[in-house]
């Protein structure tokens, strides 16, 4: 039973990280209909920024809570700057081009960013310090759920709630929803669509960066390639939930995280990725619009 609960929580932790990344895919897709293949790299850049900033801050002798908060902020801001710039340079000029062009541009951006970090940093794995200490009160749950899992779960939940409030009630959130539903009409009511698209990239990048920092601290190492696998998994989760749907991305992420966790725990960890992609294939066959995605009906 303990083993089951342990797998359950480790599945939730995985799911949380997937969700933080998947939200960026799904929001961008919802607004401009593009699969932003460079999004995994933004997550990777967030993790690298976190590594550098947290190392510098701890050498300077900052207390741990300050290190965590400042690192999260720095990673989110730096990754957002990348996300914003990628959109501006690689996607905006192709806004009215055939659909395939921005997709190819996205794949190019992904490769560029990977190789840029590979050359600027190192091809090797770098150790990442554990930012989350082992809380004393968590000791009796040891073996079932760790302190860092708990922090990841809580952080993700808080972020999801804030994001939901932002999208539902703020002016920017309303503009995002309107733009996703009908871009021409959004322009006709006076929404600056370029601005909305930039905000979407910034938000998605910030979430991914925080995901990158959390998981790097949880696992303890990073390299230039972590964005690729995590990106594909999160993308799978977004498709599973229905790409373009925000609740769908969260649901898909948790289903994927739990499936992977149980499958590797009870069957074999050699097949971890096989389960994820089998799930993707099944969903594409039986429910191509995803669990919460809408079947597109053309209404005249």
């Amino acid at each position, binding site marked *: 039973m303990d083993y089951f609960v342990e797998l359950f929580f480790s599945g939730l932790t995985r799911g949380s990280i997937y969700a933080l990344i998947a939200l960026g895919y799904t929001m961008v897709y919802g607004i401009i209909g593009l699969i932003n293949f460079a999004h995994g790299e933004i997550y990777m850049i967030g993790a690298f920024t976190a590594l550098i900033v947290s190392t510098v801050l701890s050498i300077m002798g900052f207390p741990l809570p300050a290190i965590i908060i400042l690192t999260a902020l720095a990673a989110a801001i730096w990754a957002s700057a990348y996300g914003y710039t990628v959109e501006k340079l690689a996607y905006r000029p192709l806004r009215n081009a055939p659909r395939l062009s921005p997709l190819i541009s996205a794949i190019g951006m992904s490769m560029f960013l990977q190789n840029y970090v590979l050359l600027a940093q190192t091809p090797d794995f770098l150790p990442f310090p554990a930012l989350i200490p082992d809380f004393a009160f968590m000791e009796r749950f040891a073996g079932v759920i760790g302190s860092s899992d708990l922090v990841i779960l809580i952080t993700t939940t808080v972020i999801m709630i804030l994001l939901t409030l932002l999208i539902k009630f703020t002016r920017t959130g*309303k503009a995002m929803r*309107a733009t996703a539903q*009908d871009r021409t009409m959004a*322009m*006709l*009511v*006076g929404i600056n669509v370029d601005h909305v698209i930039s905000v979407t990239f910034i938000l998605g990048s910030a979430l991914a960066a925080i995901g990158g920092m959390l998981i790097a601290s949880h696992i303890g190492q990073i390299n230039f390639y972590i964005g690729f696998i995590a990106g594909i998994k999160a993308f799978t989760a977004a498709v599973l939930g229905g790409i373009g749907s925000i609740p769908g991305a969260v649901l898909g992420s948790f289903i994927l995280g739990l499936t992977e966790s149980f499958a590797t725990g009870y069957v074999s960890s050699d097949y971890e990725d096989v389960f994820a992609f089998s799930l993707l294939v099944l969903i594409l066959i039986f429910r191509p619009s995803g669990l919460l995605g809408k079947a597109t009906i053309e*209404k005249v």
Partner: protein
Amino acid sequence: MLELREVCTYYGNIQALRDISLRVEEGEIITLIGANGAGKSTTLMSISGIVPPKRGEILFRGRPIHELSADRIVALGICQVPEGRHIFPDLTVAENLDMGAFLRRDRKGIARDLDYVYSLFPILRERRNQPGGNLSGGEQQMLAISRALMARPQLLLLDEPSMGLAPLVTRQIFEIIRQINREQNTTIFLVEQNANLALKVADRGYVLETGRITMHDRAGALRANRDVQRAYLGI
């Protein structure tokens, strides 16, 4: 109030508007009539900055607007009810109306205008919590017009408000267009297939044929014109 000077608009390499020149005076209702594909919607989209002209000028109160972005043009007071209504399907009726007032900050004024549009179309008040996508075509048209009114436009561009509506609803919508023009002193630029009806409410009219203006006159004169009668009024 609005002036187009030799406007040419393209979709890629295809030219949709050829040297369109026209004027709209403050407080009037003008109509642009023409067959399918003549370029009526394109004219409105050029004015709104969605499909900006390649050549020519568009002046609003003497100020060039053809290089402004669409949201800046709305901010100047030019609003469009596009062809096909374009209701935000997953926003409720109330949220759709709220989007119409996106650029406004005066809460009191917004509340007053909300009451006003609900008084024009009581059905919208009843349906205010339903998703816009669930309304019938006629209700969506009422919502689309109301949403534009929520912006308090100085110039309202209407693209085929009668499309797909029953004659009774069409008459009601046209009555309200007149009312908006009179009571709110909103200038109206009406694009219509239903030339008969359009020329009845309008002060002046322009005829568009394959991207060119071929005639313009007072609405009454156009209705009496033999060519217009044969081509557009089915007489």
